[in-house]
């Protein structure tokens, strides 16, 4: 088993700097998810760990070995690709056994290990089929089978569910979660889907423009985002940001308000603000409630989306800025109705303007 450590890892193509100094420590057996918008460098970083891209500078350690210059096969990693990358001319059995064939394993060994992998992935009945006869989800199972059969120290997943439809994606997501519990191996998983990140990860690494924005447990990132980007990226619908004026500072708390918001005291979470400064107040739609009384925020209903268990209301605040509230019950709001909203100041985040 292996822990992975990246120290000041960089990647440049000529003058284009794609990965700009990344430090990450992944513990043995941890499920680590790299998440970020497209072009943030998360796939490149994964491919650098796999050995498919070389590392311009910095050190990469897998299991206390520096592996910067080792070819992929000697790093003890297995990888599952977005496009599955299963060999079209081989049967499922041959595909799953591919790594063993390459290593020159005996037929008996191959049969035993393929059977075990097939049992874990519940695909015994598929073994003699060809990839062209399989559905997308089944192909992805084959790709995972090929990865687990060699018992690698580290699994790398490069957006494995992106090519699947929504229902299947959820099933496979759960399967991958179970697989991690079963195998206990270190896994690194790249996705742009924050639901996959939140549900699967022990540790999330949020990336943007080749830099780490924040590393931490999913709930840690959700409740204590380190910056505006992480706050806006995680959670759906995404966090509301209101432009507010800092009225005063008192220790770790700031008094803020704007045209639609009555003055409220929120924690500064170590960030520094000056009185009179304009700042952004982050409010998750889920933590807003409609108040029967006067409330803290005032606006007009612009749109209602009723989803049954949840009602998403778009509100135009008194200062004309938009606000989304996700209410955890079914409710009807006439268009244009005036509403007052409440929130728990402990759930609000204050960020400096960028």
């Amino acid at each position: 088993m292996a822990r992975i450590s990246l120290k000041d890892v960089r990647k440049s193509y000529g003058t284009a700097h794609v990965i700009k100094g990344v430090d990450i420590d992944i513990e043995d057996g941890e499920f680590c998810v790299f998440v970020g918008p497209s072009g943030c460098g998360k796939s490149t970083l994964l491919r650098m760990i796999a050995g498919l891209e070389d590392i311009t500078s910095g050190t990469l350690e897998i299991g206390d070995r520096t592996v910067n210059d080792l070819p992929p096969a000697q790093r003890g990693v297995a990888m599952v690709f977005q496009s599955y990358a299963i060999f079209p001319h081989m049967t499922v059995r041959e595909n799953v056994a591919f790594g063993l064939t390459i290593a020159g394993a005996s037929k008996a060994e191959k049969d035993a290990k393929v059977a075990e992998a097939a049992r874990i992935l519940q695909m015994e009945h598929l073994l003699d089929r060809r990839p062209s006869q399989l559905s997308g989800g089944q192909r992805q199972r084959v790709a995972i089978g090929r990865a687990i059969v060699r018992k690698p120290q580290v699994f790398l997943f490069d957006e494995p569910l992106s090519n699947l439809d929504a229902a299947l994606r959820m099933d496979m997501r759960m399967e991958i979660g179970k697989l991690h519990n079963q195998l206990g191996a270190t896994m690194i998983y790249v996705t742009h889907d924050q639901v996959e990140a939140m549900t699967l990860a022990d540790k999330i690494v949020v990336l943007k423009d080749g830099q780490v924005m924040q590393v931490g447990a999913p709930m840690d990132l959700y409740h204590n985002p380190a910056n505006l980007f992480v706050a806006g990226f995680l959670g759906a619908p995404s966090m509301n940001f209101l432009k507010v004026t800092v009225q005063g500072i008192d220790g770790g708390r700031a008094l803020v308000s704007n045209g639609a918001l009555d003055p409220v005291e929120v924690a500064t979470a170590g960030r520094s603000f000056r009185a009179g400064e304009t700042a952004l107040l982050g409010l998750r739609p889920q933590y807003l409630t409609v108040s029967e009384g006067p409330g803290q925020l005032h606006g007009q209903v612009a749109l209602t989306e009723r989803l049954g268990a949840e009602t998403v209301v778009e509100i135009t605040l008194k200062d004309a800025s938009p606000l989304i509230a996700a209410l955890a019950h079914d409710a009807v709001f006439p268009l244009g109705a005036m509403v007052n909203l409440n929130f728990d100041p402990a759930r609000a985040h204050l960020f400096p303007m960028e």
Partner: protein
Amino acid sequence: MASKFTVSNRTGWLMAGPAILLIAGFVILPFFLAIGLSFTNQRLVSPNPTEFVGLSNYRQLLGVATVTLEPLRDDAGAVVMKDGEPEYPSIRSLTRNNPDRPDLAGMREWFSFSLGGEAKTFVLARDVVFMKAVVNTFIFVIVVAPVQAGLALGLALLINQRLRGINVFRAIYFMPVVVSIVVVSLLWRLIYDGQSGLLNNLLDAISFGLIPPVNWLGDPSTALGAIIAMSIWQAVGFQMVIWLSGLQTISPTLYEAAAIEGASKWQVFRYVTWPGLRNTAVLILIVITMQAFGLFAQIDVMTNGGPLDSTQTIVFQAVERGYGKQDISGGSAISVILFVIVLSISLIQRFLTREKS
């Protein structure tokens, strides 16, 4: 959106018309004419009316017979020796005006062999030159198809890399394909020249005069080989481009997956590249075979079938017969025979390389 061009039949026919007329006039019509004429005694120019002669042209071309002869013996019963070899009755005594063997009339010796003992078997052919042409053509195909396909694959694998200036090499390898085969043949005639040819000079220089000049095209033992080498060189670039297109259809992630599993270069080729090239390989094999059977221009320019018929080929014979000897029906019969050979080989190749389910 249905525009006038996609719905109007008339426009469509007008556009396809020129191509249809040309294909009909120069491919389809000659094809059926050749089949028809091969059963007649049609000549290029003749005052006599054309007659239907049935299979006589084919019998003339394909007639083969064997005779096994005992060596001549003198009165004491000992074998008559001539130049250290036993002497056999002359073939001519059998094939000319011999009322006992009317079936052998007009045949000539093609080759002979002996299966141990003193008796010798003579293979006679009604048209020895055509038989040599068939054999030469088959030798040409059997050597050129695998060697050219293999070389082209090697070049394609070398070319299919991301290296600076790789396009220069692509252009260089493809250049001979662009040049007319007649021009290439003329140039190679100079290269192969027996006296001061480039090849002889080169061999002389690198061996410090140890290798004497060879008359590459003038010696029956080297002429066909010289033409084979030159033909492989000329078209290898074309096959290379086809291989290259096949290589580029293989998904790069398959190579990455193989790299992660630790495959060596040979294993990558065996498990990823070669299976991915299967359809390309079938295409290339069929294309090369067909092209090789059509060997003509090199022969026409470089050797004219000589020396001693050592570079006769089927197509060269068809042209020679039809226009040189003005025997259109004979030339047509040769063309039809070639058609049957190529068709059956292609069908066999298709069968052998079919997708096994």
